[in-house]
C-alpha cells in the first residue's frame, strides 16, 4: 500500500506542488495533532437516565486531542477507545465512573454527572517512553514510537538565565548540539550545529519551525541569502561590519512552551530539502487556564578581559620611546618601544607622561551592560476556545559604550472550535526591534573593539577621549596613530552610527476538519513578513574618510509557507494499526533590498542622504524563490511493541531553473524508521523502559536564487555620462545544478532503570552527503571569486549519550542530574576534480584560513608552517635571515569534536538551584589577535631578545621586523586549541509560599541568576576560546567583543 501511495504521489509527470498546507498528525494510536487549542465542551448528547451512548473528547494538557485512549466503565467490562480526534463514545449511566488510561499519561477517573458535557484532560506521566514529543510537521508522538532521536527542552530553561538571543541558552543542553554565540554583541547571530557540519559551504544552520511553520533564520539575515546582496559578515578577509543577527533571535523566550530538536535525517525527513542541517521545532505557549503571568528579569554584564599582553616595553619603535609628535603617531600601534622606566615621554597628544604600563584598557573602555526584560501574559479559556496574549519589552545596554538593543514583542495565540468537527487556530507575533550602534567586528576601521584591544602597552585609553567622545574641538576624530584606519575606539563607539530597526509580523492560521472515524483534513498558511532598516554613518571628521558617508538600507522580506495534510488510521485487527497521511506544501520567499548611499557631507556633522553630495548611489537587490513539495507517510504499529514509519517527499526548486534548459527541478527524499519496545516482552523489576530504534533517511539542499545564469548590471555612477556595466555574478554561474542529497542511518536505544530514576538515551549515526552545491573559491585570475559547483562529498559519524538521574528524592529534597555528551567526526570525502582544498574563510591577517580539505574533518584551521630544507632544518631568507614561509598546513577542525553539558538541579522545600557546566574539546581557533600581538609588539612572546639583533650579521634586523615577519611567514604559531570547560550558568530560586498574599498570587518565584561566569579550564591566551566574529568564519577570531559574564535577578509571578 505504501508503495502504491508513493507511486501515485511522485509520478514524474505530476511535477507540481500546491498551495496548501498541512499538518500532520496522526501517527499511531497515541498521537495527537499539534494544533494548540483548549478543551472544553464537546457536543455531547446523552441521557442521564439510562445506559446510553456517552460522547466526549480526551485531550492533553495543551488541548491537543488524544487518540487511542482506553476508556473503561469502572467495575464493568465495557470499554472504548478515543479516535484520532480524541473523540469517543461509550455506553454508561449517570454516576458511573469512567477510567481513562493511556500510556504516557496518568490514569484518570471521572464520575459521570448528569447533563454535563464530557471533556477530559489527561496529564502526562513522567514515564520516559510515555513522554509525548513534538516531531516533524508538528506531529506529537509518543516517544516509544520514534525510530530516531529527538530531544526536548522546556521553555523555562531558556528564560531564567536568559540571553538576548534565546538560542544561545541551548548551549550544553542537548547531546549532539554545538552552540556558539558570536562576538558581535547583543542580537548577534548564533552558530548552531546539529550533528556536525552538514554542508561543505552552504549554510549549516538548522531549520526553525514555529508551531509547524518553517521560519528562515540565516546568519547575517535572509536578504543576503535569498537576494544577490553581499553578506558583509561573510567571513572574508576584509569584512568589517556589524553582525546584525539572525531572525530566530527575535522570539521572546517567555512565549516558548518547548523546543524539540530533530537531530537526524530520519526525524526531519518530512522537511525534505530544508532539513539537511536538522530541525529545531518551537511550540509556543497557549492558554491552559485563566491567569495572568508576569516575568521580570534584570541582568548586568561585565567583560572578561582575556588579554595577557606584555607590559615591559612601551609604545615606540626601534626599542625606544617616541621623542616627537610624529614619531608618537607613526608608532601609534606599536609597542616595540623602550623599557617602561617611568621617565616622562611624549605621547601622541603632545603631552609628556610617565612611561609606564597601562593595564586594563579594556576594562576602562567597556562599561557594565544591562538587560531588563519584562513580560506579561494573559491567559483565558472560554467555551469552545482559548486565547493567550503576551507583551514583552527588552531593554539592553551593551558593554560597548553607546550601543544596545531594544525589543518589544506581542504574541496573540488563540484557538476556537467552530463546530464539533472544525477547529481553527491562529497566532500572530508582532516584533519590534531596535539595534543602536551595533559595533563593527572583523577589521579595524570604525571598529571600537579592534582598536581598544591593540593600544600600545603604555597608552591609557582614557587619553584618547579628546575633547569629548574621541574627537577634537572641531568634532573631527582624535587620531592617535598614523594608520588612519585604526579608528579611535571612543570615536568609533560614540560617533559612528550603525542603527538597525526591524518590524516583523509572524502569523499563521490553521484549519482542521475532524471526520468521524478518525480521519482529518488540515490546511495551514503561515507568513513571516518583516522590514529591516539599517542606517550606517561614517561621521564627518573620520580620519580615513574625512567628509563622511552614509548608507540607508531597507529590506523587505516576505516568506509564505502553506501546507495541507490529510490522514486516517485503519485498524487492521486488534493489534495492528496502519495510518497513511499525505500532504503537500508550498513556499515562496521574496526579498527586496534597497540601499541608498552617498559620500561627503556638504554641511559637516549633518547626517542625512540629501546632505551627502557625491557618489550617490542606489542599489537594488531582489530575491525570489519558490519550492513546492508533496509528501506522504505510512505508519504501522503492532501492539505497543513494534512501530514502523515510512515517508517520502519530493521537492521542486525554482532555484535550479535555467532559461532555455529543461533542468530536473525535483528531488525525492525517502525515509524509514522503526522502534522495538523490548521492555514490553522482557520486564525485570529493575528495568522500567527498554527501547531499540533505527532509522534511515535522505534529505537534501538546493541553493539560493540567480545562480544559474550570467547577468550584467549597471553602476549608479557614470563616467562623464557613460554607463558603467559589470557582471553581476560574483561567482561563475552553473546552468546544470541539481539538489544535493544526504543520507543518514542511525540506531539508538533508550533505557530506564529503577523506576526511571536512572535513564540512558544513546544514538549512533552515520551521515553522508553528495552533490554538495558549493561556492568553490576560484583563483582571482579566473575573473571570479568563486564558482557555483555541484561537487563534494561529506561524511559525519557520531555518538550521542544522555544520562538522566534522580539520585536523591524525598519530599523535601530532590536532586536531579543530567549529563549529555556527543562526539562527532566529520570527513570531507571529495571536492572538485583536480583540487583537494576549498577555502571557507580568511583571517584579516591574511595568513590564517579555514578550508575544507579532502580526507580531513570539515572546516580545517589552516596556517603556514616553517619551510624546511632537505635535512629538516628551518629554511631562512639568505638576505634577512628570517624564517621562510613553508607549506599551508591543516591543524584541525574549527569545530569541537566532543561537546558535553552537565546540569544539576536541587530543590529543597521552596528553594531550588540549578547549575550547568559545559565543555567542548578538540576544536582549533586561529587567533588573529595574537597575530596582531606579534605585529604590534604586545604579545609576551615578542619579549625574547627584544633589544638584540635578529637576521644575519651582515644585515641585522630588529625585533619588530623579526616578529612581524615571523607572524606572516609562520602563522601556525597562532593556531590554538579551543577546548574549554565553562561554568555556564547557575540559578538559585525561591518560590514564595502560596498562601502569602491570601491567594491573590498563585505562585511567585524569585531567582538569582548568573551566566558565563568563568572558565574552569581553557587553553587560549589573549582570546576567549569561544570567540568567532562570523558564523561563516568559525575558527577565526578577529576584532569582536570580549565575552561577558552576566548576573542578575528573575522574578516570576502568576495571578
Amino acid at each position, binding site marked *: 500500500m505504501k508503495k502504491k501511495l508513493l507511486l*501515485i504521489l511522485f509520478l514524474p509527470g505530476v511535477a507540481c506542488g500546491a498551495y496548501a498546507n498541512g499538518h500532520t498528525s496522526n501517527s499511531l494510536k497515541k498521537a495527537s495533532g499539534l494544533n494548540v487549542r483548549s478543551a472544553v465542551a464537546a457536543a455531547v448528547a446523552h441521557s442521564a437516565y439510562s445506559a446510553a451512548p456517552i460522547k466526549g473528547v480526551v485531550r492533553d494538557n495543551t488541548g491537543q486531542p488524544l487518540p487511542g485512549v482506553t476508556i473503561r466503565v469502572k467495575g464493568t467490562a465495557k470499554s472504548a477507545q478515543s479516535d484520532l480526534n480524541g473523540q469517543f463514545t461509550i455506553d454508561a449511566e449517570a454516576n458511573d465512573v469512567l477510567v481513562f488510561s493511556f500510556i504516557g499519561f496518568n490514569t484518570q477517573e471521572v464520575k459521570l454527572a448528569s447533563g454535563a458535557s464530557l471533556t477530559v484532560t489527561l496529564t502526562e506521566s513522567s514515564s520516559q517512553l510515555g513522554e509525548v514529543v513534538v516531531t516533524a510537521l508538528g506531529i506529537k508522538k509518543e516517544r516509544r514510537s520514534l525510530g530516531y532521536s529527538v530531544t526536548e527542552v522546556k521553555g523555562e530553561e531558556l528564560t531564567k538565565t536568559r540571553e538576548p538571543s534565546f538560542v544561545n541558552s541551548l548551549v550544553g543542553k542537548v547531546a549532539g548540539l554545538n552552540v556558539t554565540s558570536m562576538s558581535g554583541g547583543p542580537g548577534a547571530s548564533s552558530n548552531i550545529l546539529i550533528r556536525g557540519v552538514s554542508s561543505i559551504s552552504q549554510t549549516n544552520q538548522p531549520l526553525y519551525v514555529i508551531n509547524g511553520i518553517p521560519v528562515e533564520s540565516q546568519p547575517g539575515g535572509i536578504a543576503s541569502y535569498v537576494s544577490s546582496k553581499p553578506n558583509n559578515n561573510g567571513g572574508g578577509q576584509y569584512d568589517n561590519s556589524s553582525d546584525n543577527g539572525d531572525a530566530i533571535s527575535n522570539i521572546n523566550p517567555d512565549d516558548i512552551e518547548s523546543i524539540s530538536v530533530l537531530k537526524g535525517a530520519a526525524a526531519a525527513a518530512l522537511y525534505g530539502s530544508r532539513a539537511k542541517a536538522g530541525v529545531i521545532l518551537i511550540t509556543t505557549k497557549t492558554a491552559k487556564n485563566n491567569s495572568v503571568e508576569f516575568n521580570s528579569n534584570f541582568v548586568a554584564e561585565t567583560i572578561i578581559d582575556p588579554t595577557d599582553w606584555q607590559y615591559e616595553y612601551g609604545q615606540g619603535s626601534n626599542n625606544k620611546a617616541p621623542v616627537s609628535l610624529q614619531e608618537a603617531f607613526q608608532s601609534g600601534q606599536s609597542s616595540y618601544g623602550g623599557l617602561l622606566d617611568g621617565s616622562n615621554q611624549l605621547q601622541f597628544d603632545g603631552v609628556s607622561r610617565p612611561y609606564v604600563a597601562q593595564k586594563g584598557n579594556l576594562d576602562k573602555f567597556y562599561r557594565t551592560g544591562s538587560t531588563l526584560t519584562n513580560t506579561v501574559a494573559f491567559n483565558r479559556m472560554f467555551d469552545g476556545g482559548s486565547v493567550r496574549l503576551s507583551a514583552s519589552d527588552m531593554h539592553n545596554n551593551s558593554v560597548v559604550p553607546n550601543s544596545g538593543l531594544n525589543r518589544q514583542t506581542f504574541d496573540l495565540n488563540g484557538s476556537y472550535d467552530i463546530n464539533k468537527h472544525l477547529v481553527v487556530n491562529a497566532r500572530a507575533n508582532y516584533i519590534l526591534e531596535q539595534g543602536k550602534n551595533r559595533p563593527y567586528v572583523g577589521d579595524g576601521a570604525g571598529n571600537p573593539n579592534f582598536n581598544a584591544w591593540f593600544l600600545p602597552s603604555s597608552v591609557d585609553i582614557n587619553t584618547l577621549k579628546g575633547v569629548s567622545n574621541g574627537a577634537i574641538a572641531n568634532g573631527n576624530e582624535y587620531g592617535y596613530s598614523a594608520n588612519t584606519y585604526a579608528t579611535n575606539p571612543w570615536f568609533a563607539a560614540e560617533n559612528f552610527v550603525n542603527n538597525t530597526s526591524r518590524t516583523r509580523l509572524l502569523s499563521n492560521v490553521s484549519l482542521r476538519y475532524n471526520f468521524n472515524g478518525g480521519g482529518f483534513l488540515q490546511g495551514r498558511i503561515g507568513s513571516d513578513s518583516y522590514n529591516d532598516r539599517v542606517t550606517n554613518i561614517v561621521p564627518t571628521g573620520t580620519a580615513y574618510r574625512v567628509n563622511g558617508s552614509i548608507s540607508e538600507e531597507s529590506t523587505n522580506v516576505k516568506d509564505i509557507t502553506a501546507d495541507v495534510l490529510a490522514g486516517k488510521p485503519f485498524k487492521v485487527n486488534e493489534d495492528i494499526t496502519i495510518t497513511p497521511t499525505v500532504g503537500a506544501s508550498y513556499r515562496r520567499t521574496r526579498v527586496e533590498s534597497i540601499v541608498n548611499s552617498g559620500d561627503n557631507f556638504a554641511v559637516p556633522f549633518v547626517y542625512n542622504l540629501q546632505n551627502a553630495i557625491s557618489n550617490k548611489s542606489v542599489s537594488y537587490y531582489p530575491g525570489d524563490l519558490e519550492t513546492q513539495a508533496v509528501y506522504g507517510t505510512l505508519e504501522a504499529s503492532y501492539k505497543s511493541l513494534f512501530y514502523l514509519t515510512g515517508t517520502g517527499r519530493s521537492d521542486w526548486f525554482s532555484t535550479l531553473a535555467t532559461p532555455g534548459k529543461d533542468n530536473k527541478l525535483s528531488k525525492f527524499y525517502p525515509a524509514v524508521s522503526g522502534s522495538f519496545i523490548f521492555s514490553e516482552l522482557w520486564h525485570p523489576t529493575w528495568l522500567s523502559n527498554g527501547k531499540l530504534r533505527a532509522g534511515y533517511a535522505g534529505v537534501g539542499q538546493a541553493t539560493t536564487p540567480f545562480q544559474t545564469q550570467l547577468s550584467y548590471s549597471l553602476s549608479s555612477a557614470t563616467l*562623464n555620462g557613460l554607463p558603467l556595466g559589470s557582471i553581476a555574478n560574483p561567482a561563475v554561474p552553473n546552468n546544470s545544478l541539481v539538489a544535493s542529497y544526504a543520507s543518514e542511518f542511525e540506531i539508538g536505544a533508550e533505557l530506564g532503570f529503577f523506576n526511571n530514576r536512572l535513564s540512558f538515551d544513546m544514538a549512533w549515526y552515520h551521515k553522508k552527503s553528495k552533490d554538495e552545491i558549493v561556492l568553490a573559491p576560484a583563483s582571482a585570475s*579566473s575573473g571570479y571569486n568563486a564558482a557555483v559547483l555541484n561537487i563534494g562529498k561529506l561524511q559525519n559519524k557520531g555518538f550521542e549519550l544522555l544520562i538522566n538521574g534522580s539520585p536523591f528524592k524525598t519530599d523535601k529534597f530532590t536532586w536531579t542530574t543530567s549529563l549529555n555528551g556527543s562526539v562527532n567526526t566529520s570527513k570531507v570525502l571529495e571536492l572538485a576534480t583536480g583540487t583537494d582544498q576549498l577555502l571557507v574563510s580568511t583571517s584579516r591577517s591574511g595568513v590564517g584560513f579555514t578550508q575544507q580539505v579532502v580526507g580531513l574533518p570539515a572546516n580545517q584551521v589552516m596556517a603556514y608552517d616553517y619551510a624546511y630544507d632537505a635535512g629538516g632544518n628551518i629554511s631562512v631568507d639568505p638576505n634577512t635571515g628570517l624564517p621562510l614561509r613553508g607549506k*599551508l598546513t591543516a591543524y584541525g577542525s574549527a569545530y569541537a569534536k566532543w561537546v558535553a553539558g552537565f546540569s544539576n538541579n536541587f530543590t529543597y522545600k521552596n528553594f531550588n538551584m540549578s547549575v550547568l557546566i559545559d565543555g567542548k574539546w578538540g576544536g582549533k581557533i586561529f587567533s588573529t589577535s595574537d597575530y596582531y600581538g606579534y605585529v604590534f609588539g604586545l604579545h609576551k612572546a615578542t619579549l625574547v631578545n627584544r633589544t638584540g639583533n635578529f637576521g644575519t650579521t651582515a644585515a641585522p634586523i630588529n625585533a619588530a621586523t623579526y616578529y612581524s615577519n615571523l607572524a606572516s611567514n609562520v602563522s601556525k604559531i597562532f593556531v590554538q586549541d579551543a577546548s574549554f570547560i565553562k561554568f555556564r550558568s547557575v540559578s538559585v530560586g525561591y518560590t514564595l509560599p502560596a498562601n502569602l498574599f491570601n491567594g491573590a498570587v498563585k505562585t511567585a518565584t524569585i531567582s538569582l541568576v548568573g551566566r558565563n561566569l568563568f572558565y574552569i579550564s581553557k587553553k587560549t591566551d589573549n582570546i576567549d576560546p569561544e570567540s568567532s566574529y562570523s558564523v561563516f568564519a568559525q575558527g577565526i577570531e578577529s576584532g569582536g567583543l570580549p565575552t561577558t559574564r552576566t548576573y542578575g535577578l528573575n522574578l516570576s509571578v502568576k495571578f
Partner: protein
Amino acid sequence: MKKKLLRNITLLSAGLLLSTGCTKDFVERNTNPASYNQTNFNPNYMLTSAELAYTGSTDFSYETWRGNLIYCSTFMQGFSTVIGYWAGDKYLLNEGYTSAYWGNAYSEQVKPIVDIVESTKDKAQYKNLNAIARILRALVFERITDLYGDVPYSEAGLGYYNKIFYPKYDKQQDIYNDLITQVTQATAALDAAGDIPTGDAIYKGDIAKWRKFGNTLLLRIAMRLTKADPDKAKTIVAQVSGKTLEAADDAFLTGDATGGRTTINRNSQVLLGDGGQENYYVKWSNTFINNLKTNSDPRLSVLACTQLYANDATKTPNASPVFTASVQKGMPNGLDFGTAGHIVSADPSFTSFNDYSSPSPYITKRNGPTFILTYAESELLLADAAQRFAVGGDAKTHYDNGVKAAITYLKQYDAAATISDAAAQAYLTAHPYNATTGLEQINTQYWILTNSMLDFYESWSNWRRTGFPVLTPVNFPNNATSGTIPRRFPYPSNEAVSNPDNYAAARATLTGGDLLTSRVWWDK
C-alpha cells in the same frame, strides 16, 4: 471503506497538484529582475568599466595606492615619503600591498575585458568593439606580467566561458609572444567602416586613433624585449614604424568627480589625502626634483609646488602654493621619523615638510586625466629602437619629438600647466641629443615623462629594462632586498589557497625564490 478513503485521499492530493502552481514560473523566479543578460545588454557598457579599471580600482584606488604609489613611485624615486606604511620607500615587504595589483587587475580589468572579447566574438555589429577589447586586453596583461612575471594569461578570466577556475601560469615569454600576435591581429581587424564603440571613454570610438594606439602598444611590448629577445623587438619595431601615435593622439581617461570613489581620478584621491595624510607627507623625491632643477627643466614649476599647506601644525590648505622653480626641493627617499640615521628632521635638506615639493594641484585634480599611452612615450621608444637597432628612422628626430611632446603634453592636465613650444625647444637646445649617451638620455627622459604621467608602473618597467636613470638605492634598516631596488612583486600568497597547484609550479621555476629581488624573464 478503507480502500475508498485511501482512494479519496490520493485523488485529493493529485487534484491539488494538478490544479495549482507547477513549475512553469520557475525560470522567471530564478532570473534577477535587476540585471541584464547577454541578449539585451550592450557590451559597450563593459568597455567603459574596463577602461576605467585600467586606471585603478573603484574600491578607493586599491591597487593604485599600493602598487603604483606606495611601491613603484618610491622605487623609482619619483615620490618620497615618511609615512610608515609606504613600505616601498624603504624596500620593505608588505605582502598585502604587493598582492593588491594582482587581485584587482584580474577582477576589475581582466574579467570585463575578457567578457567583451568573448561575448562579441564573431559578431559583425561589434567588430571594432571586439578589436579594441583585444588591444586593451593586451594592455592589461602586459602590466600584470611586467609586475609579477609568469602569470595566468591564456586561461585567465575565462571562469564563465571555459569553466576554468584555476588558470595555469603562462611563461612570460609565451605571454609576450601572444600579446604581439593578438595586438597585430586586432589592430588589423579595426575597420573604419565598422561600428563606433559608444562606450569608449578614451578615444570616443575613433578607429584611426585606436589603430595607432595598437601599433604603439606593439612598439612598447616589443621594446620590453630588448634584453630578452632583441631580434623580435627589432622586427616588430620595423613592422609598426610610421604607424604609431601622433601628437594629438595621447590616450587618457578623464576622471569624473561626481561619481565619487567609483569614477574619481585614482592617483588624485590618494594624493589629496582622501584616505590618509598622503597630501601632506608624500613629496617629490629629491632624485626627481634635482634632475629637473639641474637641467632647468620647464616642467619643474608645473609639476611641483611648495607650501601646499599653511604650516606644519594645522595642515590647512594654502590658497596660493609656491611654484617658483628655484625654491623647489625634493625629499630624500628612505627617511622616517624615528629610525636612527634616517630621521627626516635630521636630514640636511630638512626645514619643514611644507618646504618640500608636493605634486602640484594641476596633476592631482579629482576630475583630471590619467594618461594611458602617449605620443611622447611612443617617440622616445622609437628613439631607443633607432639608437639600439637602427630601425624606424632617426634617433635624434624621435628624441626631439619625444622630449618636446613630453614637455608640452602637460597642458592636458590643466590649462595652467601649459608649457610653450619655445620653452620646450629651449630645453632641447640646451640638452641636445648625443648618440654616445643616447640610451641614457632617452630613457631618463622616458623616466621623467612616465613619472609626470604618474604611471610609475611604466617607469619601473622601463628602468628595469634599461637601467636608466642610474638610481642610488636607499639602505634602510631591516629592508627586504639587501639595499637593492626591487625587481618584481612576489606572487600573492592567497594563490597558495585559491590556486595551489599552479602557484606552486610557478614558484618553483623562480630562481632565487619568490622575492622582491627575483627577476622577470625579460629583465635578464
